């Protein structure tokens, strides 16, 4: 059993803030949807069958020939706070956290791989790397998938490919996504135009933790929409090819802001920083929004006493479940907002989270 508390003190792969183009690209991710041939899909399986699927996959994942070092978490047996914590770290989906019945996740020590059991499909393999790094993500995940396939009978059909509960994932079962930080495109109001052109080439866009509202903090995920009729490499290229274009737009928008509105953007960034350092109560949404501005300011050289890695760390540690786990108590929204503000003030005063 993994020690969830030990994760609290690490930052997790997707927010490490390293890797190619990491001033704009937060992370690169690939997930594969797979099902066992000998069981009904999760939504139609009995409790008994779901339990058997979990047991079957768990035992095989933990004994793969390569001795991949995975920790298994019985998600069904976790409390709400711990499940939310895994969602915030992007190790499980919100759906997986909120579902009922036997389910789990296997996570590797670097938090690059997570394998969800009994999500919408029996097995959802996910691999994440920091920065723009889809090729190496693909190498890693396809090796893991191949290895699992030697001991697990994946449902496969010669015409339809890998069979999934939802026809929208059939074929390759692949979803390729890149998470981008695009504050300058948001400020210059070009973001909608960009998204419309992405939809035209059948790519999907969604926000980070899209909790019912628009994307928080200018973080956006670009991913493929179709999974059938193209090879995995072609689908990866579909996303990978558009990313340099978006990076270029964002860089140009950042240049424009500095060149044409320097006082204005410097003011915005400084004010955001000021609020984060002095607020007495602050919501997760506002924190994200302000951290996004500060992150851009740091990268543009407008703030010199903060590091990008601080901002990345704060992005995850100020999330509701992380905050509560760091404090070791469950807090209601009002108290969380007070606690979050206190955490931020202390962090900026002492330059570390440990002093809290």
């Amino acid at each position, binding site marked *: 059993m993994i020690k969830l508390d030990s994760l609290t003190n690490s930052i997790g792969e997707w927010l490490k803030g390293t890797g190619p183009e990491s001033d704009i690209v937060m992370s690169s991710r690939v997930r594969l949807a797979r099902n066992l*041939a000998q069981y009904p899909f999760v939504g139609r399986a009995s409790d008994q069958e779901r339990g058997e699927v979990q047991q079957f996959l768990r035992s095989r994942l933990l004994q793969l020939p390569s001795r991949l070092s995975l920790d298994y978490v019985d998600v069904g047996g976790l409390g709400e706070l711990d499940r939310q914590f895994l969602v915030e770290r992007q190790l499980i989906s919100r759906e997986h956290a909120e579902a009922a019945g036997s389910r789990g996740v296997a996570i590797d020590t670097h938090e690059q791989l997570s394998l969800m059991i009994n999500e919408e499909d029996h097995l959802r393999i996910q691999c994440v790397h920091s920065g723009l790094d889809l090729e190496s993500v693909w190498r890693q995940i396809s090796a893991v998938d191949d290895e699992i396939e*030697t*001991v697990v009978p994946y449902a*496969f059909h010669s015409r339809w*490919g890998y069979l999934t509960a939802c026809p929208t994932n059939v*074929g390759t079962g692949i979803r390729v996504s890149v998470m981008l930080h695009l504050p300058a495109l948001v400020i210059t109001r070009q973001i909608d135009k960009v998204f419309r052109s992405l939809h035209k080439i059948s790519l999907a866009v969604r926000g980070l933790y899209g909790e019912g509202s628009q994307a928080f903090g200018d973080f956006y995920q670009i991913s493929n929409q179709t999974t059938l009729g193209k090879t995995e490499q072609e689908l990866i290229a579909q996303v990978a090819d558009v990313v340099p274009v978006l990076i270029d737009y964002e860089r140009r928008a950042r240049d424009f802001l500095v060149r044409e509105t320097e006082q204005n953007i410097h003011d915005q960034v400084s004010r955001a920083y000021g609020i984060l350092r002095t607020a007495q109560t602050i919501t997760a949404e506002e924190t994200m929004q302000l951290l996004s501005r500060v992150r851009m300011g740091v990268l543009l050289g407008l703030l010199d006493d903060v590091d990008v890695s601080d901002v990345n760390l704060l992005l995850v540690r100020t999330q509701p479940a992380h905050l509560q786990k760091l404090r070791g108590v469950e807090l209601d929204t009002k108290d969380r907002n007070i606690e979050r503000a206190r955490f931020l003030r202390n962090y900026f005063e002492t330059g570390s989270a440990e002093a809290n």
Partner: protein
Amino acid sequence: MRCQQCDKQAMFHITELETGEVREVHLCEDHARSYLNQSEGASQPSESPGPLGVAQTAEELSELDQKVCEMCGITFFEFRNQGRLGCPHDYVQFEQELEPLIANIHGAVEHTGRRPQRAAGSELPESTESLTRVIGLRKGIREAVEQEEYERAGTLRDEINQVLDNWHAEQQTADGTDSSQPSESPSSS
């Protein structure tokens, strides 16, 4: 915020600009996908496809809805309501019905990506259909037990073990490893 067409979380917040009018649409991933696919072709309105991408009369649709998967027992109607299939065999059972739907989603009807890797020299199975038969056999056992036909249940149990053993034997000859797999125990029905 909930999706406007089902109970899921709305992930897509689409702003439509139509001749000076602004309209907001909030949808979950699946509904957004079909929504965006639909609006692609919205400029040619005459032959708008039904929910399954084919023109259907109410009668045809209700006849189609009655179709049942022999393995997991899901009806096509249930699938249409939930948007999720019941088991791998549905792709065979409902192949004809799914084809236009899949074509609509993906713009393709043939997988061209990776295939199961088996050790060199061994036959690549056409599909894992033989293994999927187990789902129907388990259902058979449940029904037999309900009707107190224990002998039939036993025969079906043997058949399941046979299928699983065959797969397992094939697996071993394919990659030469020995990952011993317990066959189904009677308690697991």
